[in-house]
Every structure is written in structure tokens, then in C-alpha cells.
């Protein structure tokens, strides 16, 4: 399993790992009940420290995204989509706040939303 980690980002690495895993679950690449790689295996693949992966897994367990199966490892839990995608929604909210501050109208924003989602009105 691999996704890109930006070591120089202000976003902590464990946070990036959490988001990476959430995206995999959201997109269906990781299914409920599927086992995640061991901490060491993921650390090796991503090129990060054990502590970082351990922390990411720990917090995902606390958030209810993962479950620990004693003696076997970490497994994807049955999580509500809202939990998984909340980080993306927060990011969207921040961008929209910046747009609002910059004076971009609500109509324009909705135009763009339709463009991306392939609805009417965009060209």
C-alpha cells in the first residue's frame, strides 16, 4: 500500500497517513473487514517511522475507522461515510471561506460545483 507523504507539509505525517487510509476506504479500495498491512510493513512501504504509523492506526481506532483484532492486526471497521469524509469537508469549507473572503459570489461557486460534478450549467 502506498500513497505520497509530504514530509515538509505543515500537516503532520500521521495525519497524512490517516487521510490516505480514509480515502482508500471511501473509494472502496479498502473494504470493511479487510486487514491493513502491519505497522512495520506500511512504514517500510511509505518510508516513514514506526511511531508515525502506530499513531495513525491508534487514532483511526479511536475514531472508529479501524478495529484491532488481537493477535491478528488492524481491520477496517464499519464506519459511517460522514466520519471518513469529514476531513475533506473541512478542507472544502476552508477553501470556500477563502473564496467568500475574496469576494467570489455564491453563484460562481455553484457553477464550479456543477462543472466538477457534471451537472447542468457548466461548459
Amino acid at each position, binding site marked *: 500500500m502506498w500513497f505520497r507523504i509530504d514530509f*515538509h507539509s*505543515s500537516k*503532520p505525517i500521521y495525519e497524512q497517513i490517516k487521510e490516505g487510509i480514509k480515502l482508500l476506504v471511501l473509494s472502496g479500495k479498502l473494504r470493511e473487514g479487510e486487514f491493513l498491512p502491519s505497522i512495520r510493513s506500511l512504514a517500510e512501504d511509505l*518510508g516513514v*517511522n514506526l511511531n508515525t504509523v502506530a499513531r495513525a492506526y491508534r487514532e483511526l481506532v479511536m475514531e472508529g475507522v479501524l478495529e484491532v483484532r488481537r493477535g491478528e492486526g488492524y481491520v477496517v471497521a464499519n464506519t459511517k461515510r460522514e466520519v471518513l469524509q469529514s476531513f475533506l469537508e473541512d478542507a472544502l469549507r476552508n477553501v470556500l471561506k477563502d473564496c467568500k473572503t475574496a469576494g467570489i459570489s455564491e453563484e460562481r461557486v455553484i457553477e464550479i460545483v456543477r462543472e466538477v460534478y457534471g451537472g447542468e450549467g457548466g461548459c
Partner: protein
Amino acid sequence: MLTVRGLKKSYGSKVAVDGVSFEIGKSEVFAILGPNGAGKTTTLKCVLGLRRPDSGEIKLAGSFSYLPEEKNLYPYLRVKDTVDLFERIGKNFKREKAISSLEKYGIDPKLKVSELSHGMKTLTYLSLVLAEDVDLYVLDEPTWGLDPLARSDVLNALRSLTYEGKSVLYTSHILSEVEKVADRILIMKAGKAIIQGYLDDVKASYKLVVSERELDGYLLKRTKKELIYLVRVDRIPEGVEVRDASFEEIFEAIVRGERDVA
């Protein structure tokens, strides 16, 4: 694995280390950062028993290996003789590991150490140190003078050590590298420990704030109209522009240490 409490060391009237405490656990990479003369090397040397601290407690549970800042090997010995020397006096020295590492870096064992460039000397010394099987690796500026590929190799090697349950204590000037490999950091300035903790937490604890008036934070930059501060997340006032701070900005602002307290 290692506990340091209240370490103090002075040379005559000059205080080199002024009450530094930190801990290193297993499978951890711990980096000590700071400007020159901050006391990083003295701290390492006290931990290793090369220098006697004036006060403080140092508890090291386990074996250690050391790569000193100068990375000087015996110039009149050949590389292969140096490998032999390490085999005789090294701690759990794994000869094959050292030899394959030297091969990987293209270091000819027949060469005399005095004939090696600085970078090759560093890689040689590193190969030998990492071939010792110990609990804690103490490295003073391990990537100094190395080309980017070698540096990347070294960082991966350090990380792999922690996969085996070993720990690394090292000093560095290169912040971008520390970001890639350190679990926890200690920033020292003028002998004191100014910031300590998990690197991820340190990065998350500070933001840049653009203000027109003085604030409780570390002043990073002053333009004609604005003051840019590095502020702790729990101290950010209302109605100011907030931006993410890079690790370099955090380091620079804190080490420069210009505090304007509102």
C-alpha cells in the same frame, strides 16, 4: 533507553549545556537541532562518557555506537585494516554488513584512509558504525558533506534501524532531513533546551500570524506595514490572518528568539 536529566556542563566560565533533560525510547529517532555553539556536541559527549558533566543524571540502558563530528579515522591505515580494527574492538561488529556497505558506496578497501575524500571518509565511518549491532546509535551530523543520493540512503538506513527496535540519537543542521526521519526533536540554543517533543506535535503547535500590532509570539519578520509572528496555536488572538508555518520558519523564529510580549 536513554534518560538525561538536568545536564549541566561548563568549560571554565563558559556554560555549554545549561540544564537539559530528555528521554529516548526504543525504535525512536531523536534529533537535536540548534545553531552552532548551542551545546549539541557537548550534550552527546556527556551522554557517551567522553566528558564528565558538572551535574545532572544520565542513564543509558544498553550498548551504543558513536560517529563523532570530525569523522576522523586513522589516516595511515587502509580501509580494510580499519575494518579489521573494528572487528577487534567494535561492539557486535558484523563484518559482512560493513563490507557490503562499503561496496555499495564504491569505497576501495585497499585505499589508505588519508586518500579518501571527506564524503567517502564519512561513508566509511558510517558503514563501520552501522555494522555494529547496538541499542543506540549516537551520530553527530551523519549526513554532512554527502551527496543527495547518499544522504537519502543514510536516512533510510537510520530508519531501518528503528524497525529493528534500535534507536538513533543524532544532531543535524539540515531541517529538511530531520523532517523526514525524526520522531522527536530537541531544539537547543545557548546551552538551553527551548523546544522539545514529537516533531509532528511541534509542527502542529505553531502558526504564522500576520499582525499590525505586537503579539505574544516569536517575531519572524518585519515588513514596512506588517509584523509576522510565530504564535502558539492556543495563543492566537481573534481577527488576525493565520497561515501554516513550515518547520524552517518555526525553527528560525524560535531560535532567533525575538519575543514581543503584548
